[in-house]
């Protein structure tokens, strides 16, 4: 493992990066109505812009091997156990900061247009700002506890935002699902933290501070580290929608699309990846856990991709593709290539946000219609959306010289160069499937003739500039953001240099550039095949209505119904649990517990009824009582002497 030798510097500008969104959220919460919906939204965007500026400023001044700290105050101080409320920014955090504030800024602007017609847009912006605050706390916190606070906070905000349109019960249920499934993960995460603290305390070290932890992890035995990392990873699976806890993410699409873009694509779902990267010094000491992570990652990627193949809801497809991409990231983590994982987080943020926003713009145009089978031929009506969407699709599919190309290939090459051929193969196939379903989507939505009904067609329109501008920016980002991490045989990676101070990069065998190129070409081939199949099935024969896909076989049905995972979970976990709860709610609580309480009360009342007769209110009776007591004492003393 590496011992972080970062040069620390105090920098009390940091606190304002998360604080500004919080303050604005509070302000809007109380005075937003007075301010008016428009102004409140603009204010929220301004907040994001400000903290983005600050973040960029900090990033600009940050040396790649340096760290900024900002101690606000000591939060918990009991004995030798101290937890500071302090923020830190190192190279890793800086990247996350830029993603969160930057993409968040764009998405806020987009939301201005998207939520324009919504009555509750103030509430929306409040939640959004709050989310940003918690997310920043998560990435900036200098200790595990603060990270956990952010962790729970973003969970809460995701719940609030998924159930934003709470008047439709299905949305509320989706929110509950997201929340509850996350609880399972958080349970593991919390246990992991406890175990870590207690184990270190047993060694006489009381700390949650990342730097301290990194210094002292060597004390722990491998088994303990393995257990800790496993528990922490459970948390990650919850937050980042990995098998087995991915089920909440697709349902979370019930929320407004900007939410899906910001929370469920760009930032929150990558919290798991960030956490593992932040604690890389732990994970890299637990090979067993790492391999498990790698396999789960790969499995998730593949599995989600197969589901995404057949979904007809435009956002569902994107949701599963997100899960699949997250799978890639964890694959990279599992290979110990944290840098690659973060890199993919970076690029993925751009093109997935772009895709979601584009889908949002489509849905906006179709006013609320999400079924791709009712779309088609929108290319003519909304060119900007189409082109940005296409670029983002190429990026995610991994077309050459796009962001996805670099990041995904980096991961695959890591797998290959580690000699994990199975993982590599899965990765490659998944890449192919990714290309397929993404282009299927493009063809179904934008090409062919329109299958929407006349009324919908009537008011098809391009989205306003406030929505298309972020699309363009993101589209540009989804091309060039990848160029930072180009492989050796091109102009080489600034990325690894930037993060080198944080992670000990597992040496990819750069000597064999030819091998790398060959592997890349192979992947490209598979991707091309995927695109071609999609074209065959949907692009060319676009006059065939998509409905007659249903005639396909069992495999298709399985995929379409998401392998019945939800049903299975429902059967195994939900029903028994609800049954038990009902038992407690209807038998134990009213009869046993209330009975006990009421019984005690009745008992007391009965006794009081008897005893209150003693209190006659007559002073002389009390005096008599005094006298009796005195006599008793006297008698006692006399018996003594």
């Amino acid at each position, binding site marked *: 493992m590496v011992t972080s030798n970062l040069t620390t510097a105090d920098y009390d500008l940091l606190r304002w990066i998360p604080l500004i969104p919080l303050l604005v959220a509070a302000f809007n919460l109380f005075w937003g109505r007075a301010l008016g919906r428009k102004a409140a939204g603009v204010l929220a965007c301004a907040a994001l812009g400000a903290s983005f500026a600050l973040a960029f400023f900090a990033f600009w001044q940050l040396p790649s091997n340096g760290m900024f700290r900002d101690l606000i105050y000591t939060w918990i101080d009991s004995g030798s156990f101290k937890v500071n409320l302090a923020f830190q920014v190192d190279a890793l955090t800086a990247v996350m900061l830029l993603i969160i504030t930057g993409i968040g800024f764009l998405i806020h602007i987009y939301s201005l247009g998207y939520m324009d017609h919504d009555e509750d847009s103030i509430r929306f912006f409040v939640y959004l700002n709050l989310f940003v605050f918690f997310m920043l706390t998560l990435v900036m916190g200098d200790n595990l506890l603060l990270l956990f606070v952010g962790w729970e906070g973003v969970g809460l905000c995701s719940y609030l935002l998924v159930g934003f349109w709470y008047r439709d019960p299905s949305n509320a249920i989706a929110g509950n699902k997201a929340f509850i499934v996350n609880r399972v993960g958080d349970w593991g995460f919390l246990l992991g933290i406890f175990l870590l603290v207690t184990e270190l305390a047993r060694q006489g070290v009381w700390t949650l501070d990342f730097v301290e932890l990194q210094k002292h992890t060597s004390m722990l035995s491998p088994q303990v580290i393995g257990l800790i990392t496993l528990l922490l990873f459970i948390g990650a699976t919850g937050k980042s929608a990995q098998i087995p806890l991915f089920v909440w993410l697709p349902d979370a699409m019930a929320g407004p699309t900007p939410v899906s873009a910001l929370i469920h694509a760009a930032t929150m779902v990558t919290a798991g990846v960030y956490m593992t990267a932040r604690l890389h010094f732990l994970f890299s000491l637990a090979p067993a856990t790492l391999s498990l992570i790698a396999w789960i990652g790969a499995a998730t990627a593949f599995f989600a991709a197969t589901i995404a193949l057949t979904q007809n809801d435009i956002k569902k497809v994107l949701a599963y593709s997100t899960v699949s991409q997250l799978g890639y990231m964890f694959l990279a983590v599992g290979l110990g290539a944290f840098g690659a994982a973060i890199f993919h987080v970076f690029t993925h943020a751009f093109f997935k946000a772009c895709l979601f926003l584009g889908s949002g713009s489509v849905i906006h145009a179709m006013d609320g219609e999400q079924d791709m089978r009712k779309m088609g031929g929108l290319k003519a009506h909304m060119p900007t959306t189409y082109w940005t969407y296409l670029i983002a699709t190429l990026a995610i599919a991994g077309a050459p010289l796009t962001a996805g190309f670099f990041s995904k290939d980096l991961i695959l090459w890591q797998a290959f160069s580690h000699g994990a051929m199975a993982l590599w193969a899965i990765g490659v196939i998944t890449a192919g499937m990714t290309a397929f379903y993404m282009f299927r989507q493009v063809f179904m939505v934008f090409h062919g003739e329109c299958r929407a009904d006349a009324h919908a067609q009537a008011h098809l329109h391009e989205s306003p500039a406030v929505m298309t501008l972020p699309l363009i920016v993101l589209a540009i980002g989804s091309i060039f953001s990848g160029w930072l991490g180009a492989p050796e045989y091109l102009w080489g990676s600034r990325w690894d240099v930037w993060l080198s101070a944080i992670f000990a990069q597992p040496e990819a065998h750069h000597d064999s550039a030819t091998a790398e190129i060959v592997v890349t070409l192979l992947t490209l081939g598979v991707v091309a095949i995927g695109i071609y199949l999609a074209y065959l099935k949907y692009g060319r024969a676009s006059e065939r209505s998509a409905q007659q896909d249903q005639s396909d076989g069992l495999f298709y049905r399985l995929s379409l119904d998401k392998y019945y995972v939800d049903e299975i979970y429902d059967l195994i976990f939900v029903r028994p649990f609800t049954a038990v709860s009902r038992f407690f709610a209807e038998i134990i609580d009213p009869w046993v517990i209330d009975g006990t309480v009421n019984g005690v009360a009745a008992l007391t009342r009965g006794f009081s009824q008897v005893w*209150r007769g003693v209190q006659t209110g007559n002073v002389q009776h009390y005096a008599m009582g005094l006298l009796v007591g005195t006599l008793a004492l006297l008698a006692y003393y006399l018996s003594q002497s």
Partner: protein
Amino acid sequence: MMPLNYYLILSAVVFAIGVVGVLIRRNLIVVLMSIELMLNAVNLTFIAFSRYLGSMVGQVAVFFVMAVAAAEAVVGLAIIISVFRQRQSLDPQDMQILKW
């Protein structure tokens, strides 16, 4: 020169009588008087002890008892007056609303 016990027993008896007064009288003023009686019984023991132990402390204690007794009598009587104004009676039995 009397033995100490004589004084002690005497004051004990007076004290007991005072207790009886406090307990049985139905006139608050008399109750207060009985309390004064008890206090004086105690004073007597104080003085007797101070005489027999040859220390002034007993007399000082009596001095303070007097001060306290005076204060107690004054406040007590004031209370009695205001109570009497309220309910035209000095019988503690008529002042039993402070219960349950």
